[in-house]
């Protein structure tokens, strides 16, 4: 799940300055659970905008907005309302805003901020986080990721900032990642791994290869091309 939160209303109004007719798109995916894009939130947003003198030309709440083929199909019945609008306000995460913006011919405004969860979380969601860096160093750290567990993402840690095993940043909530790595390696009797001298990290591997830039939802993509 991707976590979104509604932007402050004044910020949203700022985006809509000079615009009068808005079409709202909601999302029944993660945004439903986050109470940011489901029908009640869409209706509340409609009311607030109308109180500010805006006209809501229409709205549509789609199962999930993270696939543009699905968005395009579901928005078809609303073509006239969207055409009549100055812009769209999308109430969901950044993925949904981008997907919608790709299939409409009007400006799309994001109504939400997407909250950083500290890295990819695996398909069955535990506490582990992965930055998908393309150059895994877990062998050196006893299986604890220094990019996600260490605030600074150090390959050679710890820094001098940790106090009582807590990070110098938000010590109440963050443990020192390299302290965890040290304890883990000590437990395994493999502190020799901490003496390793890896070369500086190759951050160019964090760019996805060409093949992975498209989607795997090929079936829906076929439908989309017909529409």
């Amino acid at each position: 799940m991707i976590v979104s939160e509604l932007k402050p209303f004044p910020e949203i109004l700022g985006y809509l300055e000079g615009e009068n007719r808005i079409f709202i798109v909601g999302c029944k995916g993660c945004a439903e659970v986050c109470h940011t894009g489901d029908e009640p939130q869409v209706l509340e947003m409609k009311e607030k905008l109308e109180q500010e003198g805006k006209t809501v030309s229409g709205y549509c709440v789609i199962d999930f907005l993270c696939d543009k083929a699905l968005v395009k199909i579901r928005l078809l019945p609303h073509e006239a309302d969207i055409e009549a609008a100055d812009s769209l306000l999308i109430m969901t995460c950044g993925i949904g805003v981008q997907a919608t913006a790709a299939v409409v011919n009007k400006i799309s405004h994001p109504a939400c901020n997407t909250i950083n969860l500290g890295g990819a979380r695996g398909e069955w969601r535990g506490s582990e986080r992965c930055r998908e860096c393309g150059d895994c160093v877990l062998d050196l750290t006893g299986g604890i990721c220094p990019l996600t567990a260490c605030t600074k993402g150090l390959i050679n840690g710890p820094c001098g900032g940790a106090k009582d095993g807590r990070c110098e940043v938000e010590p109440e909530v963050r443990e020192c990642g390299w302290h965890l790595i040290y304890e883990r390696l000590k437990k395994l009797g493999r502190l020799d791994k901490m003496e390793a001298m890896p070369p500086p990290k190759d951050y160019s591997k964090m760019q996805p290869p060409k093949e992975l830039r498209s989607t795997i939802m090929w079936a829906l993509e076929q439908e989309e091309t017909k529409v």
Partner: protein
Amino acid sequence: MSLREALKNGKFAVTAEIGPAKGVDVTEFLENGELLKGRVDAVNITDQQSAVMRLGSLAGCCLLKEKGVEPVFQMTCRDRNRIALQSDLLSAYVLGIENVLCLTGDYVTLGDHPQAKPVFDLDSVSLLQAARELEQGRDLAGKELKGSPKFLLGACVTPGADPVEPQLIKMRKKVKAGAEFFQTQAIYEPKKFEAFMQEAKKLGVPVLVGIVLLRSAAMARFMNKNVAGIHVPDELIEEMDEAENKAQKSIEIAARLINEMKDVCQGAHIMAIGLESRVPAVLDAAGL
């Protein structure tokens, strides 16, 4: 005698530090440099210390050098990527600066620009590796340099860290990566420092013990609560509390600590943090 020579000859080296001002008025900065001239072997210029934006270390080092004070160029990895860091190393050398202290750096949120994008493309170890590579005529991309620099590379360590083993492991890595001397985080417990040096001395690299001048008991308590790796024992806090002349007491304590620890290390690094005017008195009191 340069810092390199002092360390090589086994002289008890003394270094101090100045944090540049936030701005371009360098009057006080130059006054502090003048105060320290001739009394210490070199003066560190901090690099956006505590992630607070200030005049740069490179500029500060050049200004000091002009005044005849040997600088130590502090570099952190918080604000610049490997391209900029390698470039700044070359720039420093060309400007006559050879002493470089390679640090990881405090996180951005500790300073006054918490919205800034943290870099940390390199860390203290890989920065040392980069400097070493440049000395050998290549950069991190393996490209040949047109003329190579030569540095005296330093690093830091926190003897008061708990646990201290990770610090020692990293210290070994720093030496392997090229560190030729260490300046420590402030330590107020000679016994603890002695125990630390039992291990650290095996690396055969000079260590300059860090001394932070105490401004007041309140400052000591603040550091105990907020600064990693620093612990001011209760006895010293009480001494500061009970002292009528705080300035005099802080000088006395600093000198005493230097004397209690000088036999197990190769020098002292005095961090005055605004009280640079007291450093000569500390050195007098310590007989240095």
